């Protein structure tokens, strides 16, 4: 059995040796390099563009201003990151919006000319402060309902013996993938040949086909290796459309590699949220009411709902639950999904509130959660496909040594350093997409898995061959994989933690069909892998190929599906340097069957580290006067460095989810990030007695003498 084996990353060597090719590395003869000039103001109208100085830079080929690329906006498409299309009119809707595109024979020339271009903008008043605009919050129609209600929270609160009401905040955060987004566009033979660092080649193809009125088969999209996406590369963004339009305009290939600063405004970020939570409970801890209202900052460029209250609809057994998500449209760049959207910010509110409740009830926080354990989805009433969260609480608490926690804040202090322990539950809705894959066996016994899925650093290049190898009884070394190309069988985007379960199921179906085909050819069941070549030779076949397609079924819709976790964190706060430092972190997860414990562990510990960033560092501060994000680089936008990352440990519940996918898996990718933020805040409370409700937790909050 290859499934369940801790196989190492198949692409590790090419990545660490630099052999892996990214879009920015491609040699493209005759390509022009493109650089955007972006607006420095958050609202206004472009009055003029003076090209004279920029055109004197040797190597400059063209400079396009608004309306000169032959495209019109907006674009309404499910795969587009935002409807608003920059450079189609003179209006400025957000800071950082492209206002001109410079093409030159070298990147240096393009950058120099871009710096010399004089764009005059008449500024207009703008509204970009989220904190000051909550009352502008509106509910919109979205893929999930923005409000739900079961029972009556008013009745639940009337029956409560204890209530907690508070406001919680999470910050604007940027994806900052190490590889900045890059695109090479070629308009050829009335069609598009596109390389782009995307998480979803088929999404890009569909959006491009609509934008340029082409049949999808005239659009080819390839992604190659993708140096991290985290959601920023999940949709099709204006720079990709505009690169294609530019290539069409100049009849040459065009490459655009976004400078780091533009990655802060051109392909989304996780918007700040404000969450208002009310919990009602009896003295024994039984929840009688949950109300969760969430607001997120959004853009006038398009709508984006951070469904902050999503987790509260499902997490705890409670007869009365009301939730609502609102957005506030502002003059800011468009937000988007970011690793662990929705519950990622949303569970911060719910899980700190639960800690506050446990404290008020003088009850162990794990005990409180077990007391309210949901055995079916309290909002939809559906049974869960599979859920082993109870195991997670137990395993995680044991591994962490939760029993040693003192319930009294600030109780211990060796050397004056206060040590605190905190925990939180994690939950993330399971996303599943239809997917197809082709598995081909060559006469020499080598096997190729082909599917239009993507390797963005999550381990897809290891998992998919592993699943095929398992079904065919081959060692993984015999299986190659080809990904990220719309000429391959169609798969969904690599996001929503859905690739292993969705594409993996398609690969398994294809591989099983292939095995059956070989057995049919051989005329006998139970064919040994070493006999495959013989069968092919006998039938004078160079190769045999099978396609597999998998899609979620309607019957499975009768189940509520989520990934779960329990996160335990220890923090230290020193009196003279009270910046909270996380010293230990243990996560236990219920995610269905583990296909590869090594890559799965790598995903969740990476997620937990990502969560430490949310808890303590990541904070894209928007200057409300200028309407711009202040940090536009790694110098000021801080993510954890190694020294901030303590021992991080992850364990998985033993589980097989029969309803989520034929391979028994749910999603692993994002659940690790959820819960960490709240667990750190709860540990800080346990250490210091200071209740912090805003993330990231800053030393400022812990400075009372």
């Amino acid at each position: 059995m290859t499934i369940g084996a801790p196989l190492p990353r198949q692409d590790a060597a090419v990545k660490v040796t630099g052999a892996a090719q990214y879009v920015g590395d491609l040699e493209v003869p005759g390509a022009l390099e493109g650089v955007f000039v972006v607006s420095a103001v958050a609202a206004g109208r472009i009055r003029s563009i003076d090209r004279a100085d920029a055109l004197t830079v040797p190597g400059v080929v063209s400079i396009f201003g608004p309306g000169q690329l032959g495209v019109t906006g907006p674009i309404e498409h499910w795969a587009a990151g935002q409807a608003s299309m920059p450079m189609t009119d003179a209006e400025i809707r957000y800071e950082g919006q492209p206002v001109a595109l410079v093409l030159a024979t070298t990147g240096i020339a393009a950058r120099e000319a871009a710096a010399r271009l004089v764009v005059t903008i008449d500024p207009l008043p703008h509204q970009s402060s989220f904190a000051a605009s909550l009352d502008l919050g509106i509910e919109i129609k979205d893929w999930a309902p923005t409000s739900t209600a079961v029972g009556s929270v008013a009745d639940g609160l009337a029956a409560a013996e204890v209530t907690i009401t508070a406001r919680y905040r999470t910050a604007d955060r940027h994806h900052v993938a190490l590889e900045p987004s890059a695109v090479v566009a070629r308009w050829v033979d009335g069609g598009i040949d596109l390389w782009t660092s995307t998480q979803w080649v088929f999404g890009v193809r569909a959006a491009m086909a609509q934008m340029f009125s082409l049949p999808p088969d005239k659009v080819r999209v390839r992604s190659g290796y993708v140096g991290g996406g985290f959601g920023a590369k999940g949709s099709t963004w204006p720079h990709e459309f505009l690169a294609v339009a530019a290539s069409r305009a100049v009849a040459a290939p065009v490459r655009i590699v976004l400078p780091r600063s533009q990655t802060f405004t051109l392909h989304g970020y996780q918007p700040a949220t404000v969450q208002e939570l009310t919990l009602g409970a009896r003295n024994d801890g039984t929840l009688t009411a949950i109300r969760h209202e969430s607001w997120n900052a959004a853009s006038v460029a398009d709508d984006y709902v951070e469904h902050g209250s999503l987790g509260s609809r499902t997490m705890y057994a409670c007869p009365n639950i009301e939730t609502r998500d609102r957005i506030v449209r502002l003059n800011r760049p468009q937000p988007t999904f970011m690793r662990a959207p929705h519950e990622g910010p949303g569970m911060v509110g719910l899980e700190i509130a639960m800690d506050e409740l446990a404290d008020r009830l003088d009850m162990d926080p794990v005990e409180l959660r077990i007391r309210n354990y949901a055995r079916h989805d309290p909002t939809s009433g559906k049974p869960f496909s599979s859920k082993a969260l109870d195991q997670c609480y137990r395993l995680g608490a044991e591994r962490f040594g939760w029993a040693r926690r003192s319930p009294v804040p600030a109780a211990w202090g060796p050397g004056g350093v206060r040590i605190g322990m905190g925990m939180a539950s994690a939950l993330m809705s399971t996303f599943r997409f239809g997917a197809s894959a082709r598995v081909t066996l060559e006469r020499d016994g080598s096997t190729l898995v082909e599917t239009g899925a993507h390797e963005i650093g999550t381990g897809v290049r290891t998992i998919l061959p592993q699943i095929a190898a398992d079904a065919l009884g081959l060692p993984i070394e015999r299986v190659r994989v080809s990904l990220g190309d719309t000429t391959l069988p169609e798969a969904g985007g690599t996001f929503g933690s859905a690739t292993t379960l969705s594409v993996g199921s398609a690969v398994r179906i294809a591989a099983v069909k292939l095995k059956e085909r070989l057995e049919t050819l051989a005329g006998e069941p139970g064919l040994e892998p070493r006999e495959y070549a013989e069968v092919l030779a006998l039938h004078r076949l160079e190769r045999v190929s099978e396609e597999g397609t998998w899609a979620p079924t309607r019957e499975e819709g009768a189940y509520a599906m989520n990934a779960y976790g329990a996160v335990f964190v220890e923090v230290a706060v020193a009196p003279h340097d009270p910046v909270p430092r996380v010293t230990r972190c243990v996560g236990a997860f219920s995610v269905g069957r583990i296909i590869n414990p090594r890559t799965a562990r790598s995903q969740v510990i990476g997620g937990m580290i990502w969560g430490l960033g949310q808890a303590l560092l990541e904070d894209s501060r928007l200057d409300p006067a200028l309407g711009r994000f202040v940090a536009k680089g790694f110098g000021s936008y801080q993510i954890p460095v190694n020294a901030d990352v303590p021992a991080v440990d992850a364990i998985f519940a033993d589980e097989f989810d029969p309803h989520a996918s034929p391979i028994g898996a749910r999603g692993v990718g994002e659940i690790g990030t959820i819960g960490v933020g709240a667990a750190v805040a709860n540990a800080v409370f346990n250490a210091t007695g200071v209740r912090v409700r805003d993330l990231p937790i800053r030393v400022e909050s812990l400075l009372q003498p």
Partner: protein
Amino acid sequence: MKIFDYRAANSVAEAIAAAGPGSAFLAAGTEVVPALRDGLLHPDRLIDLLPLGLDGIERRDDGLRLGGLARLSDIASHPEVLASAPALASAIEQSGTAAIRSMGTLAGNLLQQVRCPYYRGAAPCNRRAPGSGCSVARGDQRHAALMPLSFHCAAVHPSDPAVALASLDATIVVEGRAGRRTLSLDQLYPAAGAVLGVPSVLESGDLIIALDLPAGRLPGRYAKIRDRSSFDFALVSAAGGLRLEGGVVVEAALALGGIAWKPWRCRRAEAMLVGRPWSADLVRQAVAAELSGATPLEGTRFKVELAIRAAATVLDPGGPS
């Protein structure tokens, strides 16, 4: 990036002669090269100083002499520095990353530009674009100064070593067109109220040859408070130490970082400490008095308490020495 001329200097005299309006000295370039790329520096000519050497560390009768182009990591690991100026070694060890410390020079460190995100991020900033306004006043203030240079600029000087050097009474040996002169650290940086966006008062052609650490100073310690555990500039830092006799402070040195456009030597606090019996409260009062002249922006108010804590760490006679 505009086209510029590159000259390697073979002697100090040659380096000074090659300098002029629009020229810039280049040491290891950890600061200069990113600044060129980010459009913060537009020189016509770069004068490479590395061929000059000037990177020795030598003991002299009256103290230690550190070459202006000495590598940060060489200074921090030097036995004489570790023995007589551990505050400096510690400040360097807590600066940047190993790669930056191995490349970066001492003079380059003292002359680095501010880290203010408005300056670095192409937002309105008087330092980068005189007259465009200081965004900090109405903007993000968390990393700004408690004691700003002037209403033109509220950025802090980012150097850690400079704070230690200030506490150690270091002097800077500068060679320029008019010959050689010696500056205190306080004299190296602009005087309060200045409107220029320059990191120091040095003029074109002024070369930092060396830094002198006088003998007999308190060795001191360095405490740096920062959001990340490593690879981060200080929110606030403190360098210094004290000497007690019978529980009474007889000598004290304290400099604070992260609160002003220059390392802030705390003469007033030192004077309050000396001659009094040491107590944690006394340290708190002395630092509070030192900072009482500050009129903090709302977003920097927390730095007062942070500075008190950082100072308490280095002025704790029971702490590690």
